[in-house]
């Protein structure tokens, strides 16, 4: 298990992390979501020993990560970092060696990953001569070349075209299949929803939601009802007991039902206003879950 446990961190008066914790099982993918500045990068940097937490701990297989065990972690920082003038193959070899491979093994692993990520022809080129997408591949190769036991990737998909996204996703799924726990942050929630076994949503330095996408859905499900009545009267649902109109557009209405509100009476009201073509509980997308989770609480709640 990769465990992030009770991480606290402040920079001056700015409380960036306020008790962040989650666990990632070997072979599973964890999608780390949150608004900009929510603390995702700080969390990952703490795991890599680049930031010292005020409190809390990151553990792998029950032991706190230290300089030695971090060498078994593949890391991709948010700000991509490679030597611009160093050749692709040499660069990947260098990182393999820093992670403890001997010269021969590092060279072979580098050749293999460069080839595998489709950079074989560019092996002898300086990194700065490559396109952004290809530089991203080199960065990934640098993270994967030492056969890491854990992968921690900060925004690995940003700046990639759809083909690049697919091949990176394929590579990460391959790693997870080999039993590597993968943590990555992303703003591309559809991608997180598609790839990840579990998701954590970070807001204002706290985990506001964590679990499988299914679990999160279940928590939110049973609250949003979508009713489509193409020729309904405007504002037909106003005044129904326990019902709030979330949106209404050309007969397509999204309703939020309070606990105990009667969905059958909503249906009856809908039938009265016209022919009902769609009536179903809404499956919230991750985007909606995210909006819900990171929404700033109403002012009176903060005051309370």
């Amino acid at each position, binding site marked *: 298990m990769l465990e992030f446990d009770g991480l606290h961190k402040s920079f001056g008066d700015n409380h960036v992390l306020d008790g962040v914790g989650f666990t990632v099982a070997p072979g599973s993918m964890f999608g780390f979501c949150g608004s900009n500045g929510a603390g995702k990068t700080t969390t990952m940097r703490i795991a890599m*020993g680049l930031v010292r937490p005020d409190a809390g701990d990151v553990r792998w297989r029950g032991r706190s990560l230290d300089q030695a065990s971090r060498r078994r972690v593949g890391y991709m920082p948010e700000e991509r*970092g490679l030597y611009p003038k160093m050749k692709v193959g040499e660069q990947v070899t260098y*990182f393999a060696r*820093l992670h*403890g491979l001997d010269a*021969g093994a590092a060279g072979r*692993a580098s050749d293999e*990953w460069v080839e595998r990520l489709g950079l074989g022809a560019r092996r002898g080129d300086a990194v700065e001569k490559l396109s952004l997408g290809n530089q991203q591949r080199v960065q990934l190769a640098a993270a994967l070349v030492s056969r890491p036991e854990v992968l921690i990737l900060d925004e690995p998909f940003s700046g990639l075209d759809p083909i690049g996204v697919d091949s990176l996703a394929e590579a990460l799924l391959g790693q997870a299949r080999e039993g590597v726990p993968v943590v990555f942050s992303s703003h591309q929630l559809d991608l997180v929803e598609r790839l990840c076994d579990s998701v954590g949503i970070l807001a204002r330095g706290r985990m506001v939601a964590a679990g499988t996408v299914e679990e999160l859905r279940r928590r939110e499900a049973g609250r949003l009802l979508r009713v489509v009545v193409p020729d309904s009267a405007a504002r037909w649902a106003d005044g129904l007991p326990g019902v709030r109109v979330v949106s209404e557009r050309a007969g397509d209405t999204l309703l939020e039902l309070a606990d105990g509100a009667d969905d059958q009476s909503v249906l009856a009201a809908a039938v009265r206003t016209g022919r009902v073509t769609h009536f179903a509980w809404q499956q919230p997308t991750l985007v909606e879950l995210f909006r819900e989770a990171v929404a700033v609480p109403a002012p009176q709640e903060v005051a309370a």
Partner: protein
Amino acid sequence: MREPTRERGTEPRNPGSAALVRLVAAREISARVRDKNFIISSVVILLVLVGVLGFQVAVNSGNDQTRIGIVHDDVALEEALDAQGAALHVDVTLLALPDEAAARTAIENGDIDGALLTDGAQAPRLLVEQSADGSLQAVVQGAVAQVAVAQQLAAAGVARLDVPEVEVTALDPNADEHGQRVVTAIIGIGVLYSLLILFGQFVAQGVVEEKSSRVVELLLATMRPWQLLAGKILGLGLLGLAQIVFIAAVGVAGAIAFDLVDIPGELVGTAVSVVAWFVLGYALYAAIFAVAASLVSRQEDLGTVVMPTSLVLIAGFVVGIQASANPDGPLALITSFIPGLSPLVMPVRMAAGSVAAWEIALSVVLMLAAIVLVVRLGGRIYSGALLRTGGKTKIREALKAERA
């Protein structure tokens, strides 16, 4: 996609500090020897050195050699030519020739600079290609005059002439030798200064490159800041050392081969002391340059942070040159103990030969103390500043970040 084959017996190990430092150093060296700036600067330094040697050879060999052909054997004249050459510090080579025709051929072929023809009654004639240079004419004129005077004295019945010999008493018999040593030391600190500036810049650029490209974050996930710093300074330092040793070897070998110095031993001693002071100076300046560079994130901002240190280096160079003129003056005396200035002043004082062993020892100890201080304090600033990107980091912030 092909799955990577899992190799047996090549499981990653946990490299120790020495291994990491070595890896970083090796990367620095291999990146730098392929760098255009490095290659160009090395070639320029070598060309300047060869130029200086060539200039010295040209200046020294201008007048001190002349080859004279003699038609008709005349022992007295030959002796006189040799004696005159010795008196005028001209290296005279004599070549006996059968007749005037042979003399003309030899001159045309460039075998001799001039031919002296003495056929009995006639006044001696000097044959030359175009014109007789000063030393040739002086030697020949002097020799002919000497022989003529001797013959006329003999004819007049004076067999032996007593000419009192002037006794020469040298006040400083080693002045020439000292001069050579000081000149060597000046050339030495010139090279030392250039290399300190050059390699200090390399270190500073390397640190900023890692910061600006953000690769430092990836590096620090696998090693500690001091390991990165040590590897960088060591790698470039080895390269710098190789370069200064090479320059010293070429310079010394050239000077000895072209016979530019009287006492090769002294030259070698000065060269060795310059190399040793380079090691100390580099350790101090590389650490300062690295720490200064860690405070900024862009190459454009590098100038402002390294300028104070560069100014100290320039001041040291100027004082060093001044010290060569007055190695026992108070300025040279004091600055030869100040860490940072001492590498550029002490070699000059040592070459001038006016330094006691304890003075050198004290200067070295002070320098070592400064290096330790800079590395310890600077290492903390460097650690704190490395991950702070954007704008210029203040030293106080860096120290605070290091503790956080």
